């Protein structure tokens, strides 16, 4: 796979940074007919500012500023608009003007991950080795094993890293550790692994401290802001199933004596917002430990308020009140439980236990509640 050697009498390391627009990306390699480029890239991409000549071929230089396009792309991903693959090509990238002594950071080929890394590297000279994680962030990919020992070893070979840098040190994001066995990498490639901080913003401090992360840098936090940016996807995913429910309501309304009206839909929407947005945001402040319980509690409060506002606690609305108080808090509970997938502290065993305890009552109460609501709808 690695065709070593033939190009090597290349210039004596005049590592020139070419400025963009100077020329079209052309293969200037001499003899080796089909030398695989270290990294496949397109100079037209706005985040690539130039290219760097190394002994083994050209490497793209990336910007440490995020442009409007990067931010807009991130926004679209957060809101789940357009199911595009937001990924970049695996390979080696340069930041600043690195040489054979510059540090090498390893990251995933999910563009959001890559963006949040490069924007913290302003003023540094370093290499970024991007793994092929199928466009998935470091944490998820480590769980699946695509950010893992085998891919790192494979990528070191493909990028000819050991000939581009003279040292034997990789910096991995700590969140990649579940997929990696550092001692295996050392055994097979000679590269040692230093686990960097959890958050990209601590990288400079980490480098200055001689590759030492403080205990604080090693801890995963899950701040309100972290949680808030995750909620739109939760909401939109839930909203997609709502179309199905609206369809059923439409059919029921054709025959119902008391059709569902705007007030019903608003009450439902409130429960949905409670489960997908309010519960995640307020997470640590809501009593209880299980996500389902937290969602149910808030759902109960919100639904009770809505029922009261709609005047359904009156005698002729009491079936509606019972029905909704059975269905909606359980629905919020289920949505809140889904947020375990986005959280950074729930364990598999914990989630399993929570599900085994909470799913049966959730289903029962939703089914009974729906029956009550249908009785109300068809009662003359």
């Amino acid at each position: 796979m690695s065709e070593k050697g033939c190009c090597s009498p290349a210039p004596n390391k005049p590592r020139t940074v070419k400025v963009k627009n100077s020329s079209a990306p052309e293969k200037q390699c001499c003899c080796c007919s089909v030398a695989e480029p270290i990294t496949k890239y397109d100079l037209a991409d706005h985040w690539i500012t130039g290219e760097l000549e190394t002994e083994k071929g050209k490497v793209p230089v990336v910007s440490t500023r995020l442009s409007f396009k990067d931010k807009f792309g991130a926004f679209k991903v957060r809101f789940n608009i357009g199911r595009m693959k937001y990924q970049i090509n695996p390979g080696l990238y340069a930041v600043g003007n690195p040489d054979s002594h510059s540090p090498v950071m390893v990251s995933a080929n999910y563009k959001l991950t890559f963006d949040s890394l490069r924007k913290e590297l302003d003023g540094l000279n370093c290499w970024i080795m991007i793994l092929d994680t199928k466009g998935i962030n470091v944490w998820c990919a480590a769980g699946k094993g695509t950010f893992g020992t085998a891919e790192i070893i494979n990528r070191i070979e493909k990028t000819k890293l050991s000939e581009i840098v003279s040292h034997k040190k990789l910096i991995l994001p700590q969140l990649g550790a579940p997929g990696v066995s550092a001692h295996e990498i050392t055994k097979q490639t000679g590269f040692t692994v230093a686990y960097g901080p959890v958050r990209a913003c601590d990288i400079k401090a980490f480098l200055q401290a001689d590759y030492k992360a403080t205990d604080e840098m090693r801890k995963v936090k899950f701040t309100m802001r972290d949680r808030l940016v995750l909620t739109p996807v939760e909401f939109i995913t839930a909203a997609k199933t709502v179309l199905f429910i609206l369809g059923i309501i439409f059919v029921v309304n054709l025959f119902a004596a008391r059709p569902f009206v705007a007030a019903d839909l608003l009450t439902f929407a409130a429960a949905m917002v409670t489960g997908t947005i309010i519960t995640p945001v307020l997470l640590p402040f809501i009593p209880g430990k299980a996500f389902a319980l937290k969602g149910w509690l808030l759902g109960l409060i919100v639904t009770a308020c809505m029922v009261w506002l709609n005047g359904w606690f009156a005698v002729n609305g009491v079936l509606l009140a019972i029905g909704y108080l059975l269905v909606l808090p359980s629905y919020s509970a289920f949505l809140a439980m889904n947020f375990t997938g986005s959280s950074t502290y729930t364990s598999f065993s914990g989630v399993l236990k929570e599900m085994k305890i909470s799913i049966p009552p959730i289903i029962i109460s939703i089914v009974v509640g729906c029956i009550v609501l249908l009785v109300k709808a068809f009662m003359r």
Partner: protein
Amino acid sequence: MKHKYLKDVSTLELSTDKCIGCGKCKEVCPHAVIEIENRKAQIIDKNACMECGACMNNCPVNAISVHAGVGCVSAVIRGWLTNSEPSCDCSGGSDCC
């Protein structure tokens, strides 16, 4: 504010006999579950463990075992439906878990 999840569920186990006190497990743990005391690893906050498996995979002498998995409801449901190991469906490219 510190997050707390269900207690006494983690499958994390440490064999102090095998441990050589290298400290890798402490280094990779995102929840400060492990501390090194007297040149041996100690589990100091088991309830904070999220079973990510980082400590197990990075221990050079296999002194740690944990049933690593994703703590994600939709992954578990998918596992039940397809009768397989739970796994995330991150293939869509979005930020799932």
